[in-house]
């Protein structure tokens, strides 16, 4: 069965990759390796279908791993239901975020590209320290400088941010809850952000 070998190859590739593996990369690697068999014509759609098959198989209750779409690629991760067990296995403790850092991170995530001054306006407090610590944790990166007097840095979230929070892309961020004055108990939803961010273009 050709499909079976292909499927196995896809699983092995995603498993062995250190970073989430993109569909294009998987297709390219497979087309090279199975060259004789496809005349170099391996369709991305075909590969995608096989990936979906694999993903479904891992959904089974008896499986402890799932195949996720993270930062535009595919990656195996353990299922959330086994978190406490795995925390016992791992010596390292999960990274901890202070509240101030998380506030700044949320503002950067939803309002990017954003300057430090804009973050400070929103938080009402100096945010140089927390922005620096987010940069150190690689959750945030400098996108460039704003073409205004003083040329301040502009910040955005990194690819690692997506990986850390298990997001396929920024559109998967939870919606911001907008306070609506008229309906007392109802909170309006606002689309998280303009999804046209040149995310990958910026990604170095």
């Amino acid at each position, binding site marked *: 069965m050709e499909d079976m070998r292909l499927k196995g190859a896809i699983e092995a590739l995603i498993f062995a990759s250190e970073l989430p593996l993109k569909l294009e990369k998987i297709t390219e690697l497979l087309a090279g390796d199975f060259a004789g068999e496809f005349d170099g014509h391996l369709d991305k759609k075909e590969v995608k279908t096989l990936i979906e098959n694999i993903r479904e198989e891992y959904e089974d209750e008896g499986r402890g791993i799932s195949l996720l779409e993270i930062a535009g690629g595919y990656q195996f991760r353990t299922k959330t239901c086994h978190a*406490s067990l795995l925390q016992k296995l791992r010596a390292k*403790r999960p990274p*901890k975020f202070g*509240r101030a850092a*998380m*506030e700044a991170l949320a503002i950067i995530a939803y309002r990017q590209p954003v300057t430090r001054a804009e973050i400070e306006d929103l938080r009402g407090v*100096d945010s140089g320290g927390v922005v620096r610590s987010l940069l150190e944790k690689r959750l945030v990166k400098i996108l460039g400088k704003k073409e205004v007097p003083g040329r301040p840095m502009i910040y955005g979230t990194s690819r690692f941010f997506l990986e850390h*929070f298990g997001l396929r892309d920024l559109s998967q961020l939870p919606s911001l809850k907008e*306070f609506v004055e008229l309906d007392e108990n109802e909170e309006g939803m606002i689309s998280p952000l303009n999804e046209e961010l040149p995310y990958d273009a910026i990604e170095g």
Partner: protein
Amino acid sequence: MNYQVVLDSFEGPLDLLLHLIKKHELDIMDIPVALITDQYLKHIDIMKTLNLDVAGEYILMAATLMHIKSKMLLPPSEEEETEEDGGDPREELVKRLLEYKKYKEASEELLSMDMLDRENFLKGFVEDVEIEDSEEDASHDVTLFDLMEALSDLLKEAKAFNPHEVNREKISVKDKIEIIIQKLSAEGSLTFRSLFDKASSKNDIIATFLALLELMKMKRVRAFQGETFGVIRISSSEKSLGTVH
């Protein structure tokens, strides 16, 4: 020399206002300005008493609140012409608070999302076995505001107090740091109150409090509470590494 504690990553004035609104169960759309200004200034006073580095932002907000309060006292008819359609003087502040609240809530939501190395784990590979001095559990760390309120209760119970007579040179914060460490190494974790000896003077209370802040800043101790506005407990960061909830 005065003992100066700078807490750089603590929340700002907007957070303090939200804290007060929540604590007093106020309607954010209809804030009683007199009450909130009063409460806000009390907090600033405590911070100053503690010789905390009260950031300029806090002072600016205090001025803003007092300005709004004074405007609220004026009859609407005497409102200046420049104020378009005699709008609510609180409007600007409420807008800022709502905008800030939106991101604060978003940040809480982010924190509750499935995170790498917390809920989901990657294929194993060898990494440096180092235990970070941090932890996350069901309880949450208290804010500076919570601590200040607890302090203010303690001070109320102690004898009359004049901040200008506080002589910090006499009671060493360094000594208090030693005492707290000793208590914690004997007990593991303590309630906030049990850090303070009964019938201690106000100077003593303040010195202990400053020592606690200093230890928190050095990340040697952690203050947390099981629920919002619950009992504050202090534990040693070094000792609590093993526990996972």
